[in-house]
């Protein structure tokens, strides 16, 4: 499903992602963990083309972003990938001038050019799926953080993605609202969605993911099954990180 070869990403002089190669089969749930500033968000954003890549190739469902291809050719591939990929952001990024259901409908109307009634019925179904059927007409400002993030997930699902990217989806939430978002994500995982989740929720990573990528300084330092990673981290970096996050 995803094939990454020698991915390199620089911001100016700084090499943020260093020669990353990996492949992710369909239906796999991958949790990406690691210290802040290690390049997790950048890694995710390269996959759907929110960042241009400096070197290497990224293949998603047959569409290839090649750092050596022309800008135009890359852009074309990026659009193709985005149509198959949903993304959920730490800060939700809901459209504040649109209601919950309008947020979910928007891409269906604009990108898929779907008639309004059809888009509405899809959006309403998705809101129901994330437990927000009653909040269709609420504006984001009228929703709690957990509700906003669930709308954001519904918005991403509306395009029927084959791949979902989550960038710390619960980091901006009050602790008591984290559970409702993780629950929706778990259901998605159980439905067989291919997911890459950057998260600091270790318990969730352990229980919901099939695979852990531990990133530090722009490198994937460990790539293991959750049980193996959490019980026997191989590197000093990972051991130290796990100690820090589980300390208190």
């Amino acid at each position, binding site marked *: 499903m995803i094939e990454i070869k020698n991915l390199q990403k620089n911001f100016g002089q700084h090499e943020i992602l260093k020669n990353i190669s990996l492949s992710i089969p369909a239906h796999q749930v991958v949790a990406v963990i690691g210290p802040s500033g290690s390049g997790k968000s950048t890694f995710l954003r390269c996959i759907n083309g929110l960042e241009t890549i400096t070197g290497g190739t990224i293949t998603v469902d047959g569409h290839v972003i090649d750092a050596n291809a022309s800008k135009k050719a890359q852009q074309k591939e990026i659009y193709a990938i*985005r149509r198959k990929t949903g993304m959920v952001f730490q800060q939700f*990024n809901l*459209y504040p001038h649109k209601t919950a259901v309008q947020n979910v409908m*928007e*891409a269906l109307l604009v*990108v898929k050019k779907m008639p309004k009634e059809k888009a509405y019925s899809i959006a309403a179904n998705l809101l129901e799926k994330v437990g927000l059927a009653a909040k269709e007409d609420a504006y984001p400002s009228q929703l709690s953080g957990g509700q906003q993030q669930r709308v954001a997930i519904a*918005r991403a699902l509306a395009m029927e993605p084959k791949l979902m990217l989550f960038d710390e989806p619960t980091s901006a939430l009050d602790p008591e609202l984290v559970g409702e978002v993780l629950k929706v994500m778990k259901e998605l995982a159980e439905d067989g969605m291919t997911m890459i989740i950057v998260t600091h929720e270790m318990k969730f990573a352990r229980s919901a993911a099939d695979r852990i990528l531990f990133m530090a300084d722009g490198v994937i330092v460990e790539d293991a099954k959750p049980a193996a990673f959490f019980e026997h981290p191989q590197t000093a970096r990972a051991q130290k990180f796990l100690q820090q996050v589980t300390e208190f």
Partner: protein
Amino acid sequence: MDLVIENLPFLLKGAYYTLLITVVSMFFGLIIGLIIAIARLKGNRILRGIARAYVSIIRGTPALVQIVIVYYGLVDYGIELGPLTAAYIALSINIGAYVSEAFRGAIQSIPKGQTEAALATGMTERQAMRRIIIPQAIRYAIPPLGNTFVGMLKETSLVSVIAVTELMRSAQLLVAQYYVYMPFYAAIAAMYWIMSTFFTFLLNKIEKRLSVY
């Protein structure tokens, strides 16, 4: 006072032209301003340069000079515009520069995450701009645009120099006819004030209405 009342229909006709010029110039100014703002933010180097030069020149020269250039200056090149047309053109171009600054500020104030969220769902840059960014930016731009509009209402008095009989020139003509100043000038001051206040009130209402979310 009697003189003013006697000539009120004439003054009201002037006020009508003042309003007409304001509204027409604002309308075209909004279109010009939006295009210029987008050119400055999203255009290539040439477009950005042109847009920046336009804003700089317009904001750095008096509106009065712009008006006489459009009306008298263009005659040298065989372009003879009617006074009202010249007023529309000069003031639309003038207001466009201020509008573009209001839009540019508003567009820049929309968080980057909004565009990214839209792109991530498969929208093109242009679709994200049109559907997500501009609708939000317009709301942010309404207070500065309101100020621009009310400012324009007063600025229209400048076109009296090219013989457009708006409110200012209506008073000047009456003064020339009756040889008294104060009643007429006081009357138009009051009329300008009433119009400005009315629009300020209206804009506050619109602003409130739009801030539902």
